[in-house]
């Protein structure tokens, strides 16, 4: 019956979004005639203000006409003048092999730069110029030298706002893929750490690197990541979230199956567990797959501090997750259906608080819950200096004022405050938490505790059905792998966690530390020279 209302018949997806090159010249290659080449390039970029064309004569055995082209906004002009232009103009190189061609001499003897590549396709050269390289054309040659001279404004490596720690490294990723890769490489000095290059986004040509440690990461997972990345056909990749949404296993689930982090030490730890990292240019958020639910509770600081408190905090995080999802639901269920389950004294004082409130408890919960989410969202988006206004409005108007006016009851505000604060303890799945909280409140309001139970079953069954790149989402709890419980609800001492997680590497006996790592004072040895 719904078909009758569909005005537009479904069109087969055409390739309108993949623009075909207008003229064939893009696929052409440069010729030997430098004047033609210069004209081609000029035609391509002339209209831009920030492009630099420079023709001059170099002296390589004989005067040769050369031409360089780059964008002053993407490349470092000083560097180019110093190491490209100057050597070409000065005559201070030595070459005894007279039979070398001029381009070969330029490459071998003249230029003082690190990265040089050669290309003659017009399209490729244009792309490289746009990513900050310098194109060098030499008279009488159809190959173009592309010299690395990128220089564009970059943010420094700073401490990220999202994952701040008390103990642990402070550095965070920046928006530059090169810097980010370097930060990871600095942590893991291993020739088997590979970063494979991808370029995604037809318009943005975003540079992507997938990182993994050969021999630790599962080859099938790496292969799967590559396959999924190759499938991406989209105009723009502006943030790694685009990639996440295009490669995740369960796009219709509220739970994320791709992880992200802003800190090199976390990414390094995940690579060492056998995960695959996806570094994307233009964002400090690096993705990791496979991603499991327990990772929400694992904070880098757990591993840097001693295990006992870390374990207690893990349990606290679990409690906080439980509270933030179910507190409002339990409040609604108990106050509207199961009055007999509340201790008498508490019931009396709750009844006293509820007495003046004009709304049903369900509506009250939804109201104050919405108000809280509005405040939170406003607090995130607001410029910092105005931020304190939010807390005043939140604390005084919504909290104190609403209770004084008798619009909401004080226990409700307390329950919602507890809910809100607990939600910040596991920030990674905050979106899933907020949605499931609403789901639970509605169930509690219609079916009572029975509804809450049904909700639990639905969510649990759903989570059990999730997978992330072949790894069950609830592993190692479902399926049960007891050995790996060492790093889930509690954090066992480091000397106990001697094997890499089987759930990720799919290998049984991958040892990551030697036996007998438990530290202890040296045993007294009779024959030793120690006194």
């Amino acid at each position, binding site marked *: 019956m719904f078909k009758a209302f569909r005005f537009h018949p479904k069109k087969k997806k055409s390739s309108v979004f993949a623009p075909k090159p207008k003229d064939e010249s893009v696929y052409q290659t440069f010729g030997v005639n430098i004047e033609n080449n210069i004209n081609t390039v000029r035609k391509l970029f002339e209209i831009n203000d920030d492009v630099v064309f420079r023709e001059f004569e170099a002296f390589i055995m004989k005067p040769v006409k050369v031409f360089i082209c780059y964008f002053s906004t993407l490349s470092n002009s000083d560097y180019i003048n110093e190491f490209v232009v100057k050597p070409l103009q000065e005559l201070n190189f030595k070459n005894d092999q007279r039979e070398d061609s001029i381009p070969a001499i330029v490459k071998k003897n003249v230029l003082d730069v690190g990265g040089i590549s050669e290309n003659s396709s017009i399209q490729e050269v244009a792309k490289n110029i746009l990513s900050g390289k310098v194109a060098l054309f030499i008279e009488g040659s159809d190959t173009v030298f592309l010299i690395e001279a990128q220089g564009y404004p970059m943010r420094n490596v700073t401490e990220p706002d999202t994952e701040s720690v008390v103990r642990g490294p402070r550095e965070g990723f920046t928006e530059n893929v090169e810097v980010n890769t370097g930060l990871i490489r600095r942590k893991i000095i291993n020739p088997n750490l590979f970063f494979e290059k991808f370029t995604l986004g037809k318009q943005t040509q975003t540079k992507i690197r997938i990182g993994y440690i050969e021999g630790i990461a599962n080859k099938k997972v790496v292969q799967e990541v590559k396959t999924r990345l190759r499938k991406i056909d989209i105009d723009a990749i502006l943030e790694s979230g685009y990639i996440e949404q295009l490669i995740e296993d369960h796009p219709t689930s509220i739970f994320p199956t791709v992880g992200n982090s802003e800190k090199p030490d976390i990414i390094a730890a995940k690579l060492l567990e056998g995960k695959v990292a996806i570094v994307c240019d233009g964002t400090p958020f690096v993705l990791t797959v496979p991603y499991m639910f327990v990772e929400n509770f694992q904070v880098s600081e757990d591993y840097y501090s001693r295990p006992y408190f870390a374990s207690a905090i893990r349990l606290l995080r679990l409690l906080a997750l439980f509270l933030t999802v179910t507190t409002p639901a339990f409040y609604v269920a108990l106050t509207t259906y199961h*009055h007999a389950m509340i201790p008498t004294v508490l*019931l009396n004082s709750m009844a*006293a608080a509820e007495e003046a409130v004009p709304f049903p408890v369900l509506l009250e919960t939804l109201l104050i819950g919405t108000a809280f989410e509005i405040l939170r969202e406003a607090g995130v988006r607001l410029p910092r200096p105005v931020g304190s206004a939010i807390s005043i409005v939140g604390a005084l108007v919504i909290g104190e004022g609403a209770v004084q006016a008798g619009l909401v009851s004080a226990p409700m505000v307390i329950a919602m405050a507890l809910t809100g604060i607990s939600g910040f303890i596991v920030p990674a799945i905050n979106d899933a938490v907020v949605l499931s909280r609403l789901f639970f409140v509605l169930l509690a309001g219609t*079916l009572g505790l029975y509804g809450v139970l049904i909700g639990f079953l639905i969510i649990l069954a759903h989570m059990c059905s999730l997978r992330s790149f072949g790894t069950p989402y609830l592993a190692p709890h479902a399926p049960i792998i007891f050995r790996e419980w060492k790093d889930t609800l509690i954090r066992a001492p480091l000397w106990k966690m001697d094997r890499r997680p089987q759930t990720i590497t799919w290998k049984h006996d991958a040892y990551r530390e030697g036996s007998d790592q438990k530290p202890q004072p040296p045993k007294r040895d009779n024959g030793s020279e120690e006194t």
Partner: protein
Amino acid sequence: MKRVFFILCCLFLLTGCWDRIELKEIGIVSAIGVDRDPDTGEILFTSQVVDPSGLKPDGGGTASAIQIESSKADTVFKAFRDINQEFDRKNFYAHNKVIIIGEELAKEGILPVLDGITRGKEGRGYIWLCVTKGTQARDILINVRKQGIEKVPANSIESMHENTELNFDVAVIKLNDYYKKTLKSGIEPVIGTLEMTEKSTNNNRESFGQSSLRARLSGGAVIKEDKLVGFLNEAEARGYNWVVGEVKSGILSIPSLLDDKKLVSIEIREASSKIKPEIKGDKISFTIDIKSAGILVEQQGSGTLKTRKEQYDYLKRLEKELEKKIESEVYEVVEKAQEDFNSDIFGFGTRLNKKDSKKWKEIKEAWSKDQFQNVDVKVKVKAEISARELLQEPLKSID
């Protein structure tokens, strides 16, 4: 997906919410009393409903935290419902703390009254059950309003019951235990008794113009075959507690042997009892073994015990006194139960059943008629007084 949506709609819109009651709609009943109205002979049902506005942390001090609602009808359940004709809230009984049954009604039988209260209702089993002595349950509920610190008077009554941990002069019972004991053969319950006393001392409360009538737990009420047959006084209730092993703590005073007319207080710390049936042919007798330990907490008499030996002997003599005292109290209550009430409140029958069920089956029928009355009961008490370090000489003024 469409189907799932349809099912969810059914789930939320067609079912659910049917038993939804907001907190604002219920009246939390904290105590109920059932009487036989002396004038009309109807059931008089009284409930003490919490008024939450009196419990607000700010400004709740002036308003009363409860309201007393009464109604009359032929049956208990009708009276339950009739309250709503003059009361706005739906009464909610899950948080009821105590059921008080009027003396007259208790004499007719307690189970029929409880049936109306507990059948299919939210009521709970671990609430206190008591009867009134010489007054109506309604009067107790009205007069208990200004008594104690709790704003909800039912909590006061509940706490009074719970205080029996510190004080063994009264016998109390929970609803579940009442059912257990009254439905079982060979044992009869003793339930808590509330009476009204008039405070003659002029304490602070009266100077504020408050009621001088106070509800008080005292002794116990003896039930036989679900009917109230009589009351135990405090000493008898104590004797009863010794036999059934309900003594947790309490104070006994015995003559101080140092000084005439002076007393010592012994705090009982531990007590246990065993009832041993003995069958010799047709003759059945019972031995009640009571073991108790206490400490000396107060010494009125003055006198000096110089040596360790003297102290030891003194304590031995006190122990004998204590044993004598307990023994006499127990004998007294056993005699009263046998002769006055003919009610097996100690559970002799169940003991006998455990020991020799064949014999029990033979005499079961006659047990409550004449068998119980005629059994021999012996009482053995072993008391111990420890805590010798407290045995200091009291302070004395020197003229």
